């Protein structure tokens, strides 16, 4: 079976269909594929001429390691076959894709759960920071307490927000 990279941090965009095809092609046991795509919201919707962008910073080394560790944890908790996480950094525009999580399993329940688990974990444990550029200036996005609560439902204390 071809070994597929599990975690990639990149500035370039990703192709969801290609990533899913790669995970499926390596494993005929797969009967379910779940994916999550996070995208840049346009906060300036309906206000022509007011373009905002978003800049993403990460901690090279720790970011990759922390996501590898959360995938290891997902494999312990759920009966899944493969997991893939791609997260973009650098300057992004409204509607751009930010993050991709894909999980494969035999049946839907395990991959649905593992996909949500990975995103809940990533939101509070992976070192990324978003900075929004708005017409009024730039500001760092605040962490949300609701993200800590999302991780708590898996029995993990986040202590982030």
């Amino acid at each position: 079976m071809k070994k597929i990279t599990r975690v990639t941090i990149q500035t370039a965009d990703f192709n969801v269909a290609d990533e899913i095809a790669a995970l499926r092609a390596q494993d005929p046991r797969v009967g379910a594929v779940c994916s999550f795509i996070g995208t840049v919201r346009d906060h300036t919707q309906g206000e022509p001429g007011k373009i905002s962008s978003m800049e993403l910073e990460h901690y090279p080394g720790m970011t990759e390691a922390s996501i590898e560790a959360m995938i290891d944890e997902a494999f312990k908790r759920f009966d899944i076959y493969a997991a893939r996480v791609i997260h973009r950094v650098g300057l992004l525009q409204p509607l751009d894709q930010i993050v991709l999580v894909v999980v494969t399993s035999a049946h839907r329940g395990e991959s649905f759960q593992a996909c949500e688990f990975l995103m809940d974990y990533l939101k509070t444990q992976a070192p990324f920071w978003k900075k929004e550029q708005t017409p009024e200036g730039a500001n760092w996005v605040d962490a949300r307490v609701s993200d800590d609560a999302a991780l708590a439902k898996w029995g993990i204390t986040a202590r982030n927000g």
Partner: protein
Amino acid sequence: MKVTIKYFAGIREAIGSGQEQRDTTAATLGALRDELIALGGAYADSLARGKAVRLALNQVMADESIALTEGGEVAFFPPVTGG
């Protein structure tokens, strides 16, 4: 002991540097934070007690009670907001 200190996001911007080497007598991550706060200026502002600051030691999330180690890599950053 010598440690490498990294700063990210708003803290990096405030301090004006992403990384520095320091000699410290601090025994724990919390004591190192206090040492930096005592420098005043942007250090005191961005790392002030009461501000949401997260820490990592050797690229693993860590509490302030964790002991510093010779040659360790300490990071100070705001709560994370990826995804």
